[in-house]
């Protein structure tokens, strides 16, 4: 499944898609792969909720830093 998603991502990179469509699809597929690994390989789906809270907290803080840094200096994601 993960290998197939990676292959689709690379195929999309070579397709003549609009930039917005390409970025949207790549981000969605990347998020799907991320979720699959975290929920099943790292057992977060079945494990104690405390671990989920800690990890999601870290991700939220990281995205917060990311957003503040980009918006403060005027950077762009794409």
């Amino acid at each position, binding site marked *: 499944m*993960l*290998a197939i998603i*990676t*292959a689709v*991502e*690379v195929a*999309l*990179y070579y397709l003549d898609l609009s930039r917005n469509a*390409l*970025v949207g699809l*790549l*981000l969605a*597929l*990347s998020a799907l*792969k*991320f979720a699959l*690994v*975290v929920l099943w*390989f*790292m057992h977060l789906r079945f494990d*104690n909720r*405390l*671990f989920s809270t*800690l*990890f999601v*907290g*870290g*991700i939220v*803080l*990281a*995205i917060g*830093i*990311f957003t503040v*840094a*980009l918006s403060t*200096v005027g*950077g*762009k*994601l*794409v």
Partner: protein
Amino acid sequence: MATSTGVDNRKLFMWLFLASECLFFGSLIAAYLLYRGQHGVPCMDGDLSTCVFPTDRTINGVEYEGIFDIPFTSVSAFVLLMSSVSMVLALAAIQRGNVRAMRIWLFTTAALGALFVGGQAFEFTEFYREGLTLETNLFGTTFYVLTGFHGAHVTIGVLVLFSLLIWSSRGKIQAKDSLNIELAGLYWHFVDIVWIVIFTLIYLIQP
């Protein structure tokens, strides 16, 4: 091991560590996205007016947009994903009490990790030959720092896996010790998901 939280302290520590690592890599990725495509010139004597960040994408006069070898990096990403699968199989094996199968899958995971690091070393060497160094521009600095730190994490993971292999060869890892493999697996999968993000944001979504 009973604790007031109801979970093993070692596992709790590992998840706390991984949460802090999210911040670490989040900062590096944000820095990369801020500075990519910028050919920075160092400030002179702290005078901000001398900090020039034109938006050209050249490295010593050469366009860098085509510097990434997507097919090569895709194979590297595939290798790291497959190492996560073999790590899952190693944990499943030790939980069944099958130490021999665990050793085989641990070795497979470590070997795939080493292959990934070798690929990264090759990629870095190629970029240096193209003229992209740590000092060339802000793209070079942030790219090498981000991917270099990820590579260092993978290298540490490979060393941990080989340590576990040596430990198990001395009979020190049995089914009751499966938490050791689980903790190593959590770290390994985290390194994998960081690469999932890097591969998409840095390699596939270019400016």
